[in-house]
């Protein structure tokens, strides 16, 4: 079943880009498909469970797990409970020494069921007991973060997630989640750091590059933004460059042109005293103007290729005259 994890694997080969937490996969300038939504997973999954035969028990159980999660996501609490019951008996919990649960995977599902029913304290109890059994069990560590967010305890969630990432530093989904949390709290520097990790973990994914560039724009760093929008365009070169990236390139180059015009009466004296990271004399005002022009051309080109409506196109044309 095509879920989020398998799609990430695909993306390395077919330059499909997807940001964890988003609902669609993008290839160049086409939203090629939506990640299969929980409703679909539930409907198709239950059908398969009822009628399908499985090569091994492991596969059947894995599908059941997926269906339970999908059921919880779509509010089908009773159905989820019914599916969970046989798992409970199958992986019986036999308290012995520190062992609490027969299966931590089932424990996670138990916790999620309680969360769906609004019984947050009971769910937290399960997660904490599971972590006593195995303090490094990643799925439940992450579940705890989700629980804290549900309770509105955003700062605690950020702390837990940060701690989790100290140990599991290649978890792209977690880095993206933390970046979002920081961004929502207007902690831009920290969010930027997270997106940098994301970019290192998935260099082929232009969505992170673009998001980072957009963040640079928010932080008032158009030179850096320009670099990363350009990188995003490079990554998506085979599709002619992604619209998102060209938009950003147009805006970043315009910001730099305006900055240049405003400084020293346009004599190109540059900005003394700016941080050296942003000073890069290899790119000049002429380059910015050229980039700005090309971006405008490409944007209109994409709208034409996609056969966008004439109303939309005329709005974009008018917009391009202001930026």
């Amino acid at each position: 079943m095509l879920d989020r994890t398998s799609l990430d694997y695909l993306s390395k080969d077919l330059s499909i880009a997807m940001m964890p937490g988003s609902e669609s996969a993008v290839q160049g300038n086409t939203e090629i498909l939506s990640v299969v939504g929980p409703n679909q997973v539930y409907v198709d999954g239950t059908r398969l469970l009822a009628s399908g035969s499985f090569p091994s028990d492991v596969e059947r159980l894995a599908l059941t797990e997926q269906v339970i999660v999908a059921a919880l996501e779509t509010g089908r609490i009773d159905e989820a409970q019914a599916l969970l019951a046989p798992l409970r008996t199958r992986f019986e919990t036999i308290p012995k020494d520190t062992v609490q649960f027969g299966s931590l995977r089932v424990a996670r599902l138990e916790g999620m069921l309680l969360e769906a029913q609004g019984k947050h304290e009971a769910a937290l109890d399960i997660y904490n007991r599971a972590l006593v059994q195995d303090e490094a069990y990643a799925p439940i560590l992450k579940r705890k973060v989700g629980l804290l967010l549900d309770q509105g305890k955003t700062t605690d969630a950020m702390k837990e997630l940060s701690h989790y990432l100290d140990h599991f530093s290649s978890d792209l989904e977690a880095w993206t989640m933390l970046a979002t949390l920081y961004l929502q709290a207007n902690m831009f520097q920290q969010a930027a750091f997270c997106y940098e990790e994301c970019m290192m973990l998935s260099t082929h994914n232009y969505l992170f590059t673009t998001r980072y560039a957009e963040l640079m724009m928010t932080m008032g760093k158009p030179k850096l933004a320009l670099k990363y929008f350009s990188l995003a365009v490079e990554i998506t070169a085979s599709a002619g460059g992604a619209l998102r990236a060209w938009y950003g390139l147009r805006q970043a180059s315009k910001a730099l042109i305006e900055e240049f015009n405003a400084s020293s009466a346009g004599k190109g004296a540059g900005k003394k005293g700016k941080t050296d990271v942003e000073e890069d004399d290899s790119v000049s005002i002429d380059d910015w103007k050229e980039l700005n022009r090309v971006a405008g051309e490409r944007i209109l080109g994409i709208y034409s290729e996609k056969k966008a409506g004439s109303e939309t196109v005329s709005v974009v044309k008018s917009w391009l005259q202001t930026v």
Partner: protein
Amino acid sequence: MGTVLTPTAHAKLVLHAAKHPSQSVFGLLLGTGNEAIDVVPVTHNFLALSSVFEAAIEQTNLYAATQSSQLRIIGAYVANANLEDTELSPLAAHLALAAAGGVDAPVVLVIDNAKILDGEKSLGLLPFKQQNGAWKPAQGVVTLKGDVFKTLQLIRKALETNCQSLVYDFDNHLDNAALDWLKNGQITQALQLKA
């Protein structure tokens, strides 16, 4: 005194929020005075990425001008990710102010996620306006124009048939330039709404 919404505006707003149940959504209100005639969905990834909003707001302004000389951005709507969160996010307030610059008193409608599908009792929209520089819950109730019962029935049926998948915001548009995020004509058609 209170904000009035046309059936089209309310339907699009609800469907936009319904399309992204676990995310925060944000959009702009188009209208005149205190009447929101239409809405333009902007994003379902409500993060402080200024360049994206600048483009969206500018294009919405240009679009409004092509529709009618009276139409302008009069405010915004926002739905928080958390079910029970009905606070006005400072970012939404800031954007509403930036977008509805020409208007006397921009309004931000915060969607009460728990109540939005309630029905006739309340529309599930909490209006906020600026008073002496600070954003506060506004006086007056948000009302729906036209046949309220019929509109709510239409919306309910639309949700049952997954019509919300037809709502496109600026975010979607950037992934696929063919999607019409400004007018979302396909929604008006699907719902056979009149104004």
